[in-house]
């Protein structure tokens, strides 16, 4: 159902193959393909149209048409343009006032309460702040309760006023409470509201005025469709918010709404939500989002995630082994254990370029490694160190020892060999540039 932009463009240019005199007319079709790919990723139609017009102008200007691989040259223009639009460096929170007040706003079910708690947790542990959570959703059944449960889990105080139906006065009182109790950060959770609900929009406008938050954050579901345009604009008109939190990116959405919102309100996306747990909060990286929207995977995230988990010592050891071609199954096993610590397998695999598409219909268990581990455990120590020695009869033995088929063992060996190659490539390339080369190599 979902074709990535690269696929679509390759397709569009296939048609043109052999035709060297590509004109403005001919390029129109691939421009249309780009537009459709973006719309398919949930970028708003109008933004997609503006975007493709810019891309078209650049493509004509840069003589993409005469490039050896026009499809790829075009993809590059698109990717660069997208990354630029998504913004520069990741932007943090501004917390200089005392207390610093954060206001969370957005549609129903977008993740405001969860992210209020996640942010409080993050600020407490990573930024040494003393946060107070404030429950201003007086409408949804048990909404206050929800924040209280989360606060209790985290050991963070939640300010609530049972029976008070006026969120504005609750927020004002909470700020007073924070001041007299030494809290330097106040995070205000509010009820979800539709942008077209005038009374509710007016209410949050008043709340905003009353507490003058330093950081008003628009919390939006990454799966949002075409409506993102209107919603973001309406909230921004009322609140002139400082930033955006893009939630539920642990799903498989392309997240084109991110581009829409960025283009419409030109506010930075400051955080992303990647799960229901309190730790599932990440900083936003524009270029990674650009790749995700385009269906190009997210190698950089993957590598950084890996780096977080690998301790330096073993990383150095590994890298030496890779360069000496001495990387064996024992090392692989060690890596598997590391990877298992990093989290959900499908999320990780999805970050590898080309994999996203290949995996979209494949199920990967979180215990996907069980079989691999079983096979490796059935190898002798010398086989593990020198995988090249594993011949046919050894394969048969390993298969029966691990309860797998010979085909499974063959696959494992093949994947292992490929992996060694890729790792070597990454190493020689070095840094991000090397990574980009690899991406190109894999596409």
């Amino acid at each position, binding site marked *: *159902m*979902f074709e990535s932009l690269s696929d679509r463009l390759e397709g569009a240019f296939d048609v043109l193959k052999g035709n060297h005199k590509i004109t403005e007319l001919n390029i129109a079709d691939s421009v249309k393909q780009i537009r*459709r790919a973006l*719309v*398919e*990723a*949930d970028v*708003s*139609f*109008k933004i997609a*149209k503006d975007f493709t017009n810019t891309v078209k102008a650049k493509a004509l200007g840069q003589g993409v048409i005469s490039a050896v691989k026009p499809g790829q040259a075009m993809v590059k223009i698109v990717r660069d343009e997208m990354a630029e639009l998504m913004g520069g460096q990741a932007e943090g929170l501004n917390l200089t006032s005392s207390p610093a007040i954060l206001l969370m706003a957005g*549609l*129903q*079910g*977008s*993740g405001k309460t969860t992210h209020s708690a996640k942010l409080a947790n993050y600020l407490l542990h990573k930024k040494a702040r003393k946060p107070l959570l404030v429950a201003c959703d007086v*409408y*949804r*059944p*048990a*909404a206050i*309760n*929800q*924040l*209280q*449960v*989360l606060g209790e*889990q985290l050991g963070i105080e939640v300010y609530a006023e049972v029976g008070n139906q006026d969120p504005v006065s609750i927020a004002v009182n909470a700020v007073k409470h924070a001041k007299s109790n030494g809290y330097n950060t106040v995070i205000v959770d509010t009820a979800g509201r*539709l*942008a*077209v609900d005038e009374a509710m929009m007016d209410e949050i406008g008043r709340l905003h005025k009353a507490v003058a938050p330093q950081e008003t954050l628009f919390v939006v*579901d990454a*799966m*949002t*469709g*075409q*409506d993102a345009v*209107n*919603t973001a604009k309406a909230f921004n008109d009322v609140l002139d918010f400082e930033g955006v939190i893009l939630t*539920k990116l*642990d*799903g*498989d*959405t*392309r997240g*084109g*709404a991110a581009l829409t919102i960025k283009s419409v309100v030109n506010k930075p996306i400051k955080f992303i939500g990647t799960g*229901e747990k309190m730790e599932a909060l990440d900083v936003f990286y524009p270029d990674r989002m650009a790749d995700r929207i385009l269906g190009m995977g997210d190698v950089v995230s993957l590598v950084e995630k890996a780096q977080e988990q690998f301790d330096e010592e073993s990383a150095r050891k590994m890298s030496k082994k890779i360069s000496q071609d001495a990387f064996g199954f024992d090392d692989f096993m060690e890596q598997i254990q590391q990877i298992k610590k990093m989290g*959900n397998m*499908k999320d990780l695999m999805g970050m590898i370029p080309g994999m996203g598409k290949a995996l979209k219909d494949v*199920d*990967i*268990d*979180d215990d996907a490694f069980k079989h691999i581990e079983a096979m490796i455990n059935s190898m002798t120590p010398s086989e593990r160190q020198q995988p090249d020695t594993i011949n046919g009869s050894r394969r048969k033995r390993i298969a029966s020892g691990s309860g797998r088929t010979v085909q499974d063992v063959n696959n494992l060996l093949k994947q292992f060999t490929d992996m060694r190659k890729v790792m070597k490539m990454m190493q020689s390339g070095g840094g991000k540039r090397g990574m980009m080369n690899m991406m190109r190599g894999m596409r």
Partner: protein
Amino acid sequence: MSFFSKFFTKDKKETLDQGLEKTRSSVFEKITRAVAGRSTVDEEVLDDIEEALITSDVGLDTTVKIIEALEERVARNKVMNQDELMQMLYEIISGLMQHERGAWEDFELPKTEGPYVLMVVGVNGVGKTTTIGKLAHQFKNKGYNVVLGAADTFRAAAIEQLGVWGERTGVPVVKQEMGSDPASVAYDTLQHAVSKGADLCIIDTAGRLHNKKNLMTELSKVRRVMQKVVPDAPHEVLLVLDGSTGQNALLQAKAFSEATQITSLAVTKLDGTAKGGVVIGISDQLNVPVKFIGVGEGMEDLQLFNPEAFASSLFNK
């Protein structure tokens, strides 16, 4: 107001209708604007229709399908007036929305042995619990004996949230503690329903993203365990989709179908803006009927959905 009586099978308060008026008039207006004053079906007209459909969240695949159907029926650059073009679009769109498994005419339960079991599933925050509250209200009003099961044992205060709906609607809620096994809660609920001779049993489940395999497997388990009490349960698996979700809605439907064989859909939060186009795409792409739509946060804000009526009202038929 007249079209609303065709639009949805139930006439509701005026305030409710206003939300939907936006959808209807907006999709209609966008299309009308796209074809206004045009006398030939050229590239530009087709592009404008594509834009009208996509910005109404009809979705790319369905939009392309509509455009292609249109192209097939009219020779390029043929002279044609606006009414003819609108008629053609109406025929195409209403054709896409037809379904074998039809809509519900009323809040009336099919006959079953023992309680009718309805399990509600969906990704996080789409409106499952709220929809359950609304359904409980509707069926209770029809004189049915309803029991709710709080099998979302994961999200903070989800049990309390359903509890409030139980109080509001005067319907009992079977629950355990937060963190307990959802299958066990579902089991208890069905047993309770059977012993009390209840007519309808609605099971709330925790929101889960469809790409999380282990969470999807959990749903299959809930399903299996319920069958120990009521062999042909669940009679209905309702997937709730958020009306403002984009193309991901289709992936959700696919994945939930595979894990739990969904039998019907509810599309929520349609009181918002011009998002209703999404039901055109959904009706076309999925072979599961949209049965309910949510148009607000109150108990009354649920309507039965009728695709044929929707299509004709869209074109002022």
